[in-house]
């Protein structure tokens, strides 16, 4: 029984130690809830890197209101319950000024009521589901996002496919386990059919699958002109390879989940001729973006993906708002975030609208010779 007692005592000691830490008054603590482990660890880690980069920069510039910024990150293993507990802990025990996260809408949805109830602003970098910032019909007062929402991105690609590419027949291959993917696919389908196109087939897979040939074989039989695969790069690259292996020559289409250097590394040219919507392009000569990419490479190695860029933007928007706010209380910072206008982020120029969504233009990128090329800007 010594073991039990020892275990209980250790637990209590650690909890007590954790509770004792108080943020000193010369620092500003911000919280991040992310999936550092689990099936989506890749995305959470990217976001975390983006946030760390932003924090490092703001501190190099002298912090906010003369205070250093410190970020505290809690892992949620990709589970909504854990995200809620972590958010509660950051807000009530660590007393963070701003809460950043989560990547996935399902987890942001679990955090949002807590941010609202405790009047601490939450900015989600990449949760695209419209309901994240909405509680029923009314906008959640303390929850914001710096990314597109599903309807926007889905619609952009549908319009691009129908109006610019003049396509008639499109097949969809969605990740049924990801709310992001399902959302984009739904809105794409709606808009594309509205514009007179036909969805010839609507297939699905589950993130992490190794094999997509079953779905692709069926899609091939329906002879589409484009396959819309709104998913994450981790799966899309394999989808593309297997599509080519099956002799499918039509382009693929997707959303910002595609954006990662890994996409091209895995796809090995299989995506040439495909299109996807995104926030920005690494090729954009804008020094802001080039600087970000360069510093990210130096610090973490590798090219930042959209998750990193948006994590960076979320932190930047929060810092700018804190700097503008009269004081660092939740309501004051909230008001400041809500009045963000034309903020130059690496993921586009951000204006927060009355629904607390980021209004920004999307770019459509084409892939040629295993590299993304800018094709068009689509304004909201």
């Amino acid at each position, binding site marked *: *029984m010594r*073991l*039990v007692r020892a*275990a*209980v005592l250790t*637990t209590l000691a*650690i*909890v007590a130690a*954790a509770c004792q830490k108080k943020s000193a008054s010369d620092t500003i603590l911000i919280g991040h809830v992310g999936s*550092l*482990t689990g099936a989506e*660890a890749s995305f959470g*880690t990217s976001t975390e890197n983006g946030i760390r980069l932003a924090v490092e920069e703001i501190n190099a510039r002298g912090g906010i209101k003369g205070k250093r910024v410190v970020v505290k*990150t*809690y*892992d949620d*293993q*990709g*589970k*909504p*319950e854990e995200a*809620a*507990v*972590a958010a*509660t*802990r950051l807000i*009530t*025990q660590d007393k963070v000024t701003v809460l950043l996260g989560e990547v*996935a*809408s*399902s*987890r942001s*949805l*679990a955090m949002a*009521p*807590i941010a609202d*109830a*405790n009047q601490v602003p939450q900015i989600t970098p990449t949760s695209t*589901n419209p*309901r994240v910032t909405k*509680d*029923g019909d009314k906008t959640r007062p303390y929850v914001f996002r710096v990314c597109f929402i599903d309807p926007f991105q889905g619609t952009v690609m549908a319009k691009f496919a129908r109006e610019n590419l003049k396509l008639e027949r499109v097949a969809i291959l969605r990740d*049924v*386990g*990801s*709310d992001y*993917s*399902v*959302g984009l696919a739904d809105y794409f389908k709606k808009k594309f059919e509205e514009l007179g196109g036909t969805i010839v087939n609507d297939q699905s897979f589950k993130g992490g699958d190794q094999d997509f040939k079953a779905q692709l074989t069926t899609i091939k039989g329906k002879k589409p002109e484009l396959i819309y695969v709104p998913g994450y790069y981790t799966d899309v690259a394999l989808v593309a390879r297997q599509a080519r292996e099956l002799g499918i020559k039509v382009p693929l289409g997707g959303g910002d989940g595609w954006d990662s250097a890994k996409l091209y590394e895995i796809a090995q040219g299989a995506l040439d001729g495909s299109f996807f919507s995104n926030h920005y392009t690494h090729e954009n000569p804008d020094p802001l973006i080039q600087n970000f990419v360069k510093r990210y490479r130096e610090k973490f190695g590798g090219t930042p993906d959209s998750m990193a860029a948006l994590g960076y933007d979320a932190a930047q928007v929060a810092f700018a708002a804190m700097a503008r706010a009269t004081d660092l209380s939740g309501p004051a910072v909230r008001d400041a975030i809500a009045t963000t206008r034309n903020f130059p982020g690496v993921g586009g120029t951000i204006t927060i609208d009355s629904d607390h969504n980021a209004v920004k233009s999307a770019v459509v990128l084409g892939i040629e010779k295993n590299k993304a090329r800018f094709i068009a800007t689509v304004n909201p």
Partner: protein
Amino acid sequence: MAPLRQLLRSFLPFLVGVPVLLSAQWAMEYSGSQAYTLLLVTVGVNVILAVSLNVVNGATGQFSLGHAGFMAVGAYTAAKITLGLAGFKLSFLPAAVSDQLFFALALAAAMAAAGLAGVLVGLPSLRLRGDYLAIVTLGFGEIIRSVIENMKSLGQATGLSGLPLRTNLVWVGVSALATVVMARRLSVSTQGRALFAIREDEVAAEAMGVDTTGYKVRAFVISAAYAGLGGALIAHAILLATPRMFTFVRSIEVVVMIVLGGLGSITGSVVSAVVLTLGLEALREFQAYRMVVYAALLIVLMLLRPQGIFGTHELWDLPFFKRRGARKDAGGAARAGGAP
């Protein structure tokens, strides 16, 4: 007078528990500190899950890996009901009371629905044993999740969000208490002993008049119903029900809890659910290293104490608590020491 005393005895744990919980809840609200509420809710729900799974895995000896599926059924059933009844109020009651009544209804429905799912999952247990049963129950859990992911009316991958906040310490406490009381009363009753008999020797149990098929299904149903209750409670605490909450990894976590606590030991399940939940929370500071530490601890703990923290015993069986009467029950003490 006798029936009244009877009733009193039947509900005694609750007559003691509810006022304590109410005052805890009130103290929490009064002090304005909600810091630990959600954590305590998770602890409570894990206790419910562990103790209820123990009825099947520990007491009956059937290896089920589908607990998350039952949670999902309960969570979605309750969520659908509270969302559907969101606009209604019983006009003759204060709003808060009316809400809580509806929630009670939702919880009851969650238990019923999950229990029904338990029948479905319990049926294969009549033909399958051990690992075969484990993989089939795991499969059922995944099927349930898969169905939810594909149902538009259940919100697909996003799930049902915007649930009203209904779960509080009182609900969780009472539910956890009810689960423990259920498990305890079962274990000292003739029905519970019938379950143990199935675990020990199915052929002999059948020959001694235990309807093994019936009892296995009943164990599944009871266990599933309480898992559904746990699911409903957690959904109304984080105001969300999504398929992500109910993966087979969740089921495995619960199995880990009961084995670590000692298969068949109710207090073991309770202690291990509490320690594991709080321990993981305490380790949160370690970020990504947390899970590595957790995994290493799991292995070390199992190697040091293979029979689990409590073995098959309850807290009150341990030498520590029966120092006075220790000599009288030499058998019990020998058992607590464990086999070599």
